[in-house]
């Protein structure tokens, strides 16, 4: 019941957020000079008028706003201007899984690498492992992912020829971008895990657990890891936001046909409908992810109450 109320409330706020984003970007877009109908060749006035009528661009702005808002509410973003064979919904339906796959893999990389190195660092505190892992973690946080991508391309694509240069549709092609996407977050997670574990391992009940004769492995994995999980889960919210934006760049470098590519192209080419669709999808995605993280947080920590 409580969960239901929480979700309902959040849903309400999501509607507000989406509406704000919609309104801001709608008026921003319509005031940018240059329109979606500009092409290499100049349209004759008649053709132009036709096309404007087709896309309802000739109506007064307020009318366009409400029509578009109503359609958006019905989840119909309309046809794409620059991908004329598709509706925006179809473009998003194709792009979203690609970005999602990249994001999920990036996240899995981040969590697995981050938590493993964090645990090792915590257990072997002040050892060479600890220092080098923490150094690497800071490095991962500091280096922007496109610099990392360029470096990895030179090493793994040009020199070692282990991966293809770019593209999508093959397991080989997903590893490099996913790794670059996950690297900064792996760094953060490693540090959070280490801190969380050190805090837990200093507690009395850990000593009790050791005293009971539990093996160090059990103690570390069962109790220590649980302590480290909290900060990591609470970090997932911002991490997801970061993954979303990070994939913009990586999709561009590695030529991945995901949402990010669609959005940037749409913004540059003034594809009003597609840009709007992608923007709102990102908003909803971010909101849903944040909500899920809050839910997960309340699940693993009984002290947290949903509000």
């Amino acid at each position, binding site marked *: 019941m409580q969960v239901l109320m929480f979700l309902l409330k959040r849903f309400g706020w999501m509607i507000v957020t989406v509406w704000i984003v919609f309104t801001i970007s709608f008026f921003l877009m319509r005031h940018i*000079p*240059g*329109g979606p109908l*500009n*092409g*290499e*060749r*100049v*349209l*004759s*006035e*008649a*053709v132009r*008028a*036709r*096309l*404007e*009528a087709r896309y309802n661009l*000739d109506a007064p702005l307020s009318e366009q706003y409400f029509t578009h808002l109503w359609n958006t509410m019905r989840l119909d973003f309309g*046809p794409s201007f620059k*991908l*004329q*064979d*598709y*509706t925006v919904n179809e473009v998003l339906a*194709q*792009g979203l*899984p*690609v970005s999602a*796959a*990249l994001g*999920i*893999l990036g*996240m*899995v990389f981040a969590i697995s690498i981050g938590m493993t190195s964090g645990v090792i660092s915590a257990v072997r505190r002040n050892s060479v492992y600890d220092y080098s892992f923490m150094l690497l973690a800071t490095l991962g946080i500091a280096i922007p992912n496109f610099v990392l991508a360029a470096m990895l391309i030179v090493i793994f*694509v040009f020199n070692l*020829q282990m991966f*293809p*240069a*770019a*593209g*999508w*549709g093959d*397991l080989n092609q*997903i590893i490099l971008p996913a790794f670059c996407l996950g690297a900064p977050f792996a760094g953060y997670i490693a540090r959070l895990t280490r801190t969380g574990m050190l805090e837990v391992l200093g507690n009395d009940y850990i000593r009790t657990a050791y005293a009971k004769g539990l093996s160090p492995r059990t103690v570390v994995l069962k109790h220590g*890891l649980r302590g480290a*999980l909290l900060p990591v889960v609470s970090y997932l919210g911002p991490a997801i936001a970061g993954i979303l934006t990070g994939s913009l760049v990586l999709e*561009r*470098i590695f*030529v991945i*046909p995901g949402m990010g*590519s*669609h959005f940037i*192209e749409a913004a*540059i*080419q003034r594809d009003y409908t597609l840009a709007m669709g992608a923007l709102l999808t990102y908003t909803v995605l971010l909101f849903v992810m944040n909500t899920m993280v809050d839910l*997960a947080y309340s*699940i*693993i920590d*009984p002290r947290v109450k949903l509000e």
Partner: protein
Amino acid sequence: MVRFLRKYFPICLLLLAGVSVIWAVNLGTLPPAEFVFNNGTEVKTIDPAKATGVPEGRVINALYEGLLRSVPDGDPDELGRTPTKPKAVAMADDYRVSNDGTVYTFHIRDNAKWSNGDPVTAVDFAWSWMRFLHPETASEYNYQLFYAVNASKFAFVDLQEGDPVEVEMKDRPVPGQMFPRGTVRHGRLVSLLQPHDDHQSAADDGHGHGGGGISGAAIFVVEFQQDGTVTTAAYTTQAVESEEIQALVNAYQGEYDLSELTSVEHVLFDFEHVGIKAISRNEFEVTLNSPTPYFPELVAFYPLHPVHRPSLEKYGDREFTKPGNLVGNGPFLLKERRIRDRLRLVKNDQYWNAENVHLESVDVLAIQSETTSLNMYLNGQLDWDTKPPNTLIPLLKQREDFVSTPFLACYFYRVNTSKPPLDNPLVRKALNMAIDKQSIVDNIVKGGQIPARSFVPPGMNGYESAYCGEYNVQEAKRLLAEAGYPNGQGLPTIEILYNTADSHRDIAEVIQQDWKKNLGVDVSLRNLEWGTFLDTLRVGDYMVSRSGWIGDYADPNTFLDMFVTDGPNNQTKWSSRAYDNDIERAKYESDPAKRMAIFKEAEQRLMDEQPIIPIYFYVSLNMVNTRVKGFSANLQDVHPLHLLSIDSRGAED
């Protein structure tokens, strides 16, 4: 529940991660295609009637086939370029031209088939061309067919009283979908009722579906003859209740019977009276306004490729292009399409010449980054790269897989002749002569481009280009002084506009330096992002602007008819009665040699007045894997996919 989740949270998380990784990894892997090339960008559409660009052309030419096909044919010229010619090696196996050069009769081959097995007939072409011209299609290229009798009347709804008209009722079987059309009645326009004051205003307000040539509110009184009886009816393309129409009704109530005014979709010039006709199943006849020697080239051009009517009517204007729905008549079929990733084409077994199509599958990629594209080519992921980056061209040039040749395209600067001091032809000529075009070609673009001394590129059949002078600083200075600006004194700053891409900035900067150094002219640069750039150019808010033009066909007309007075692509505000006359005269000249002479005269006018400054002629730059056979350097940089094959012996690169 929560308790359970709490206990097993880490395990749940792991499971979730595992499942999503498996899902992500399995996301639509495709088996590799036999031939992969980079098309440079995502195609805007694969509907022939709506497409406009070169990348679109490559795909559409593979999926569809017109009456004729432009193919490399004949012996290479002195630059190693194979000429391209429109030949009846496509849907038509033969065509005839009447003696006066105005009637073309195409014979469609008997084994021409759509990919679903339906025969391709003359009716398909007539219908497709009708759709292409139809105002509701709003095809950007529709002017390509305006050579046919009455075609522009049909497209622009340019109606006079007495014209034959077709009226489409508002009873379309699928609402909101253009085809199948509603009931069409054929009659004769008796009267066209319009408000008196704005009779002449040009632009359509966009609300009416009929307007275009006809602006604003209009009532069409149409007369029908059936079995000897004559009936008349009044139509409007707007809502009958609308204020404007009611005002019209009140104004004309006394003269005409408007009590049964009906709202309809369209009142158009009757297509049956347009010079495009299916005479029989195989005979397709086109009647032109004037002899147009390059008409075969237009017929081979992809906007005029036919579309399959049943599938279009079934799936609608957009859905019919989807893989699975698309029925084509070209050498390839659309198997799969991933937006901004690739189009997968496979061989079409129903193609009339399928036995000579060698590639089984082709991937068309949409990579925009030139560097990435080249990397993928060098990495073996691509077989054909269409645009290697300028920086690396000197290195690439030495390789045997670098295929490059000048083709029919010109890089030039538009000069806005309405802005002083550029309204003075002497100034424009001086600016032209002060540019070291050779240096631009050698140091910036580097691909072996040809410095341009004319606007029409060399290589047009039987055409010798005009001439606008060499790089000559002394002469340029003299011209500028003659114009009243000795040593550039008193000349305001000239602004060069360019779009943010490629080497435009570099070229602009070299020219800036040339003008400053040679003429003492101050130059500022202004770069705009593509969309804004086009807008600025269109409204004429510029002084000098970077431009480029690729010839649609191998005839000077494709370059020269741009600059007629108020031509939509003129954009320089330049206007010359003599020039307009020349272009018009060339249309009706049937003697090729005389025609070319007229064009040369016109181009010379253009070069003397210099509303444009030609910089260089493009070269095609292709990286093609040596295992690919059948790839020829040609004049229009067209490389039909069905002519290519893979030599597996040369596979190890």
